[in-house]
């Protein structure tokens, strides 16, 4: 087992290396298309989040205002409806020409509480990105910071694309959930 100091130092080194990654993509004569695609996708996803958030807020009003007696269950539902992502574990796959990385992301109250690399098919050992990248994501939480690292090597792109895809699923699940609650309320 790694000591906490070891983990701290590994995280610092890994953050240091990844902080430069963005430069490489700009400087490289030909940016690798798939890594580039990941960046675009991430930006797109970030915008989606905002939109969905608004939608969720509107739904919240519908639930809060009815003159029903507020029960504990009711409060819990309200909290759930405010979330960006539906609680649960979601899988996602990121793929580039060198292989693919599969991840499982567990969300609770919009916090990423678990990140696992569940499968990897890349040229080199998964140990290079596991557990460093899952740990980093757990520590950073902020999806927008992913932009900084997605220009990294293809494995990193694989990982993050996998996470993005998992988060998309969590969002879609939340939208569905909000819609179903609204429907039940009107019924």
């Amino acid at each position: 087992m790694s000591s906490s100091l070891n983990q701290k130092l590994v995280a610092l080194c890994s953050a240091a290396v990844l902080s430069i990654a963005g430069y490489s993509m700009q400087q490289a004569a030909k940016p690798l298309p798939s890594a580039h695609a990941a960046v675009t996708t991430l930006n797109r996803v970030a915008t989606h989040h905002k939109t969905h958030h608004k939608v969720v807020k509107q739904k919240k009003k519908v639930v809060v205002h009815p003159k029903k007696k507020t029960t504990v269950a009711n409060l819990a539902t309200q909290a759930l409806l405010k979330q960006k992502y539906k609680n649960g574990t979601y899988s996602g796959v990121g793929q580039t020409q060198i292989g693919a990385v599969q991840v499982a992301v567990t969300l609770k109250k919009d916090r990423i509480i678990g990140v696992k690399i569940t499968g990897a098919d890349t040229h080199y050992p998964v140990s290079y990105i596991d557990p460093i990248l899952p740990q980093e994501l757990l520590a950073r939480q902020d999806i927008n910071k992913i932009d900084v690292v997605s220009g990294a090597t293809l494995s990193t792109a694989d990982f993050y694309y996998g996470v993005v895809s998992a988060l998309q699923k969590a969002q879609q699940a939340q939208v569905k959930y909000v819609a179903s609650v609204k429907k039940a309320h009107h019924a």
Partner: protein
Amino acid sequence: MLKSQQDTTIERTMLLLGTIVTIKVESKEVSAAVIEQTLDRAFAKMQQVELACSRFDEKSELRRVCNRVGVPTLCSEYLYEPLRFALMMSEITDGVFDPTVGRVMYANGFSEHYLTGTKVHDETANPGDVTYKDVVLDDTQRTILLKRPLTLDLGAVAKGFAVDLAVKELNGFESFWIDAGGDVFVGSHHLDGTPWHVAVRHPVQTDKILCTLQAAQVAICTSGGYERRNRIEPENHHLIHPITGKSPDHVISSTVIAPFAMMADAFSTAAFVLGIEDAKKLLQTADLEGLLVDNELECHRTSGLGRYF
């Protein structure tokens, strides 16, 4: 071992970061042109680190920062990240590892650019008692603030950081290896599947090998006092204890294995300066393996080093 016709092996050597840097890539699947392009990128990154962190180049970011006291100075990640790591090492070692030793090194004659031989003109006033605590970083703004005039020296982290950046570029290849004057990083294995063996040089009989480590996907860094002797005080070499200003004599070679070269580099330097007993404790705390040689040529291994033989 059979070699298929598509096997490509490319090796490139450059003078960088005060040493000779060699990168070797072996691949079955990637063309020579792609490897060459990747090597261009890897070396370019390493050069960026040198441009940012050199204490010997007046135009380096490091020198620019050192010329501004009392004001936060914005800098690139190429300087900020290794400095941040160095300061973390200072905290861990209670100031034994200290990137503000530049002043002391300059005073001891380590003041020539390794390529041009030109002398560094360091006009920084010398308070004499500066420490790492006089350097304040702001992670959100990426600025460096020097509370007092001082000279930063990132010699113990910059080279490792440069190697890590090169590794990042090379990681897609089946087989690669980097040697940057004592900082070695090996990929998973040779193209034919056999493991990498890294030889640690004997600190006194420098044409002999102390031991050979079998390693995969790790950095192995050796700090030794035998390469660069101090010209002004011959008993001192280029690794200097920031508190006493003297080179410690009881460790003459220290080798550390770590997942990142910056980590291996910093820890081998720290271990060297700390001395045998404290160094072993430090490595144990950080869960790292290493090999230390004392001045009576006795080898001291950390408990888990065995798995690298």
